[in-house]
């Protein structure tokens, strides 16, 4: 991994909400093609961190460089950057007034200014990739949660993203739908996509992650490869957390 270009470089990053110190002195490097899984108790800053990666939140100090572009509030390149960095949300956030196909086409057509025919071809291609080509003309509300999340993944991919961020993509799903979404994410990982995933699905993490990150109270407590992370974590707090979520 080390020989590949860094895609995300975080140095000394701090983030405040008023007086609340949400992210403390974060250092993290994600290389091209690397799969990073971030876990930790709720309120530990996992979501805030990845939301900084595409400018949904702004950090207050430190440096954040994504694919060679320096990210800061008011950066002109932020919109170009967002096109390269896809985001999948816990609540899917599909556009309810558009059909599945239109959800996939609107970004490429309006933002990337691609022709309608070409956008539709790309959209259908990615719908095949997430295994729901037959749902193209339905509205999001007519789909199950798992299907909606797969559409959301396809929507990001249609922008020809180079980095994919997942913010607890399976937390809002019924248990029987979690696997269909994780399967799509595993397939995506196999294509060599750079992925940063906030999740508590440790089975997925074991299968896919190159690097595990454990966060608590706005700090990164542990960064290690999964084999070490799951068997012999260096911090006591991380061991406790793993025991809690792996017991069931």
């Amino acid at each position, binding site marked *: 991994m080390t020989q590949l270009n860094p895609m995300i470089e975080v140095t000394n990053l701090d983030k405040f909400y008023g007086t609340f110190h949400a992210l403390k002195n974060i250092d993290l490097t994600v290389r091209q093609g690397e799969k990073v899984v971030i876990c930790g108790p709720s309120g530990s800053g996992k979501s805030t961190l990845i939301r900084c990666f595409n*400018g949904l939140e702004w950090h207050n100090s430190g440096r954040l460089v994504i694919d060679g572009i320096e990210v800061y509030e008011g950066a002109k390149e932020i919109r170009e950057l*967002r096109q390269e960095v896809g985001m999948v*949300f816990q609540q899917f956030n599909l556009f*309810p007034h558009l059909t599945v196909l239109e959800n996939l086409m*609107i970004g490429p057509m309006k933002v990337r200014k691609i022709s309608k025919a070409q956008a539709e071809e790309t959209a259908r291609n990615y719908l095949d990739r997430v295994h729901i080509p037959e749902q193209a003309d339905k509205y999001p509300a007519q789909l199950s949660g798992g299907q909606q999340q797969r559409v959301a993944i396809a929507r*990001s991919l249609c*922008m020809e993203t180079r980095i994919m961020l997942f913010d607890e993509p399976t937390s809002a799903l019924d248990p029987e739908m979690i696997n269909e979404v994780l399967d799509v994410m595993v397939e995506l990982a196999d294509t060599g996509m750079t992925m940063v995933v906030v999740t508590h699905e440790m089975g997925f993490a074991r299968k896919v992650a190159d690097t595990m990150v454990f966060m608590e109270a706005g700090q990164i407590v542990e960064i290690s490869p999964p084999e070490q992370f799951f068997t012999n974590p260096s911090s006591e707090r991380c061991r406790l957390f793993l025991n809690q979520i792996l017991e069931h």
Partner: protein
Amino acid sequence: MTDLGISRGTGQPLPKPPYYKRFFGSSLVSVVIYAVIVGLIAYGSYSGAQGMGYNWQWYRVPQFLYRNTEIGFEWGEIPIGLVATINLSVISFLLATAIGLLVALLRLSGLVVGTSVAVAFLELIRNIPLLVLLYLFYYVLGPIFGFNRYTASILTLAVFHSALISEILRAGINAVPTGQWEAAKSIGMTPYQTYKYIVLPQSVRFMLPPMTGEVVHLIKSSAIVSVIAVAELTTFGRNIISDTYMSFEIWFTIALVYLVVTLILSIGVSYLEKKYAVDQ
């Protein structure tokens, strides 16, 4: 219907509601009570008018709706006035929506200047009576900027209703979940694109019912421009009365015309709403 009368589990019929509830709940009784109330009001006003010696001349009203002259069919003053009212209302409404959208976006812009300008505008307009606003536009701003009574009316109605419309638009825009903004942002949309393709199309659903109310309100308040003699339904009504002295018949007719127009509008929009709701 059949299983509704049987309580679950025992198979025994449910006890019937009390007698008076069944009596007042039945549709026939409701219709009768309604007819009686309306009849009493109608009779009351009619006998009151008789008492003051009013000479009813309903037969003279149709000529103000339409006439068959030797030249052929021609519309009377009331339909012509109605068209003028609708014209005035449509133009004012479009202008009011444009101003309202601008004010709403200013208010939502998050800029201190934008918000304070919007709030100042809203407070100013909301706290001036419509009639005074009309006088301001016609007697003060009209001579200064050189616009006529028709323009003054349109501006008055547009400005007055833009304050209310901007609040409806703001509420509708705020009703769209923040996740939609974030999703649009995350695929690289500009704020303008987000409004145009994502937020506004979704807020229409939330805005439609209060906006209909606002159109109805605007059509009704457009009658006020008759005080500066702009040609529209109410003005025509006043003119007819000054010619014929049939104030009861003409005011009843004018009121009925407003009622019919606004009812058609409300029913039409509630049909649209249902159709729109199915799509979601």
